[in-house]
């Protein structure tokens, strides 16, 4: 016999509905771990990422993971574990700069365009939509190929991709918030345009901005790695960067040196996963329709 009566178990009552929060928390833990590794790298390994052991000698290249080198050594005899620890600095820096650039440009434009409307809005939107439609990586490739890769240059190239993302999200939120009654109420008590934008609209777009911000971090790390992969690396060997190390490893793939690409790749995934979990969780938290 079937029944549609459900006893709700106590454990379910206890656990209900915090999937989103747990996603954000997991993301933060992963990130803290990754950033911790990068900051504490000098204390976690006796070796240097670019050169050598304490005595200045290189290791034997192409060593499989072993007790001495838990992640093996690479083509020129550097310890991969050490490089993995240090290799996040460049992508994280590039990601930070690029999302900051994009945020500083995209958010004000979105606010302006969305709130003022009219021809200006149409024009900016057209430009931003065109940029948005363009494959981001290819745009970044074009820009870095022309201006040459460096931390700031690469960050700027990636920022160009993300400006329209911030713009679109902020603008669409402004458009919907602008129609809300509390904005009209603010007008009715005589609030100035500036005050409406900054007191009533901007604070309510912040959750949306945070979602894009963390997604932007994840994407920036991936794009930086992608640029490294096709030879537009931000740093040159022997400096360490996860993307670059994966790119180098590609040359030794057929000989089966799996460890050269595997470990930096996993670190890349972990770092981006941290950001994307935060973004996904925040998105749920702000969208009550999707959470129970």
């Amino acid at each position, binding site marked *: 016999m079937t029944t549609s009566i459900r006893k709700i178990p106590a454990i379910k009552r206890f656990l209900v509905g915090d999937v989103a929060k747990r996603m954000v928390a997991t993301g933060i833990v992963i990130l803290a771990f990754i950033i911790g590794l990068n900051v504490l790298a000098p204390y976690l390994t006796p070796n240097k990422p670019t050169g050598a052991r304490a005595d200045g000698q290189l290791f034997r290249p192409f060593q499989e993971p072993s007790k001495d080198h838990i992640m093996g050594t690479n083509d020129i005899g550097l310890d991969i574990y050490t490089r993995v620890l240090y290799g996040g600095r460049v992508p994280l820096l590039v990601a930070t700069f690029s999302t900051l650039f994009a945020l500083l440009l995209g958010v004000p434009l979105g606010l302006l365009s969305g709130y003022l409307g009219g021809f200006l809005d149409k024009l900016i939107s057209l430009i931003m939509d065109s940029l948005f439609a363009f494959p981001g990586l290819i745009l970044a490739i074009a820009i870095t190929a022309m201006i040459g890769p460096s931390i700031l240059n690469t960050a700027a190239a990636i920022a160009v991709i993300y400006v329209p993302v911030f713009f679109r999200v902020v603008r669409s939120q402004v458009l919907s918030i602008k129609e809300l009654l*509390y904005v009209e*109420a*603010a007008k*009715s*008590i005589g*609030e100035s345009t500036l005050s409406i934008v900054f007191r009533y609209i901007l*604070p*309510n777009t912040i959750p949306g901005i945070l979602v894009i911000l963390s997604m932007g971090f994840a994407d920036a790390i991936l794009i930086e790695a992608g640029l490294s992969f096709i030879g537009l690396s931000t740093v040159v060997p022997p400096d360490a960067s996860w993307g670059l190390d994966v790119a180098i490893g590609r040359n030794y793939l057929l000989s089966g040196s799996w460890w050269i690409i595997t470990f930096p790749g996993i670190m890349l995934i972990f770092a981006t996963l941290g950001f994307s979990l935060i973004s996904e969780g925040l998105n749920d938290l702000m969208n009550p329709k999707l959470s129970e």
Partner: protein
Amino acid sequence: MLLNVINLKKYFPVEKSFIEKLITKTKSFVHAVDDISFSIRKKEIFGLVGESGCGKSTTGRLCIGLIEPTDGKIFFDGCEISSLAKRELKKLRKKIQMIFQDPTASLNPKMRIGEAISRPLKIQGNYSKQEIKVEVLQALDTVALTPPENFYHRYPYELSGGQRQRAVIARSLVLKPEFVVADEPIAMIDVSVRAQIMDLIENLRKGRQMTFLLITHDLASARYLCDRIAIMYAGKIVEIGFKNELFTNPQHPYTKALLSAVPVPDPKHKIDRIIIGGEVPSLINPPKGCRFNPRCPYAETVCQTVEPILDKVGDEHYVACIPKPFYKK
């Protein structure tokens, strides 16, 4: 007369895509408010009643200068609202305020109640921090959000619907205005606390000598609260009168139908209902002549061509209907 509205019109342009603009030269408009006139006395609660989309909320927004009229004039205490410069309009806000339908939506979710209520004072300037706090607490007290200190630091989501609406009213009171436009102040509130909001409005009128324009679709509460009522249909006022006259001796077929459509909370009362077919017409191309003529059971041919104007039929009782079937009887 505190407020005089004369031949007020508001047409909203219909948003068109770029290509439609190319194809058709003619611009089309939503005739939201189409040539209405009325006046409100000091200390009066004036009701503007109609179905959704009849233009009553637009009228309310026009009356506080939130949007500009397409044509016509609004005089408040002798000065014309629509001709005011921004700075003068800001001064006028001290005297005119508005309450909106949805209390939840009319409070910024990221702003504490105290801050929200203090904004009108801060915008006007000339108040010290101390004064502002005193005024805000006093306003909270007036709307019975007591003890006021408890509510000062709360966020809107921590309040119930009725409490939020009282906070909104407090915000509109803090400058001690003379005139308040209340746009469906009880529509989104639980039945059991509606009367509380209505009593609050009534007490403000008595105690503070305030004047209200009450916009509502609910005839029963309009009858409870208002002194005079104007009935709107499709952008036009079809009938104005004192509430008892209007409810006991309605003249316009629309008023009559509207009154008979209200469900009466009394099972012994048997309604002789006038069932009107069809639905409210599009205001982009409103019907020629009387706007109600396609649905009106008493329509004559003349109604299809001649636009009726408000005609005096009794003591301050005006109706815009050509055949006047009930009056003649």
